[in-house]
């Protein structure tokens, strides 16, 4: 049973990070006001949201399974309070930081209409901090974190997200007003 929880904890963490990476990329794309090839803007926004929610579910499973696992030596405080862990407290603490940030981002996103655009946007910016922290946690804490295949994927995602952020900061970011409209009709 412990072996299963351990394996599941690792796999769910990996899946959660992958889904978060995709969601961050689509979040930047949807902010640009552009459709994605044949996918209209509202679908890009929905896929962004659904990937993030799926990532959150796998993150809960990741934390939950490792909490029950006797090998990871987690206790309840480690789930929300960073840097108290028994094993590699710094790297595990980064995971806790990312978990707390994601919790704030998801909660304010679900309550977006109630909180208003200003609060939503201010908290949503934390995604740019949450993603690298989550990635650092995976590299530093993961059993496969420093293996070749994982580092390759990590560098690949840093290049993709980095390129998206540079594009976000560039003058060409905002989509042309009518581009993609013709493709829809």
């Amino acid at each position, binding site marked *: 049973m412990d072996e299963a929880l351990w394996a599941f904890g690792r796999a769910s963490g990996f899946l959660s990070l992958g889904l978060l990476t995709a969601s961050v990329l689509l979040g930047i794309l*949807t*902010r640009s*006001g552009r459709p994605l090839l044949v996918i*209209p*803007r*509202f679908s890009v*926004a*929905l896929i962004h949201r659904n990937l993030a929610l799926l990532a959150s579910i796998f993150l809960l499973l990741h934390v939950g399974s490792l909490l029950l696992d006797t090998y990871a030596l987690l206790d309840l405080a480690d789930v929300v309070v960073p840097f108290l862990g028994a094993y590699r407290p710094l790297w595990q603490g980064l995971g806790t930081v990312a978990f707390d940030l994601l919790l704030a981002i998801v909660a304010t996103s679900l309550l*977006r*209409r109630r909180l*208003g*655009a200003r609060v*939503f946007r201010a908290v949503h910016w934390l995604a740019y901090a949450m993603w690298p922290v989550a990635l650092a946690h995976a590299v530093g804490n993961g059993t496969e974190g420093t293996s070749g295949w994982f580092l390759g994927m990590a560098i690949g995602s840093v290049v993709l997200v980095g390129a998206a952020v540079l594009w976000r900061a560039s003058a060409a970011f905002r*989509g042309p*007003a*009518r581009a993609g*409209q013709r493709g*829809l*009709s």
Partner: protein
Amino acid sequence: MTTPTEPRRAAGLLHIDWTACEGRGLCVELLPEALDRDEWGYPVARRGGPGERTDVPLVWEELDGAADAIALCPRLALGLKRLP
């Protein structure tokens, strides 16, 4: 029997908050019969007069699409006024 050219009674008004709208274009995709984009990307009503730019008349079949547009608008710039 109604002909396509006959104006239909509006079932609701899609209110656009111009201080929030940035013309991201999601609403136009979800309500293609009611809205078009101007050259800067901002929504314009396809039917009705120029006075109906802020409160766009919608027919009954468009109310579901309007609910999606209101929920998904990235700028929270949309609201619906139902008409009796």
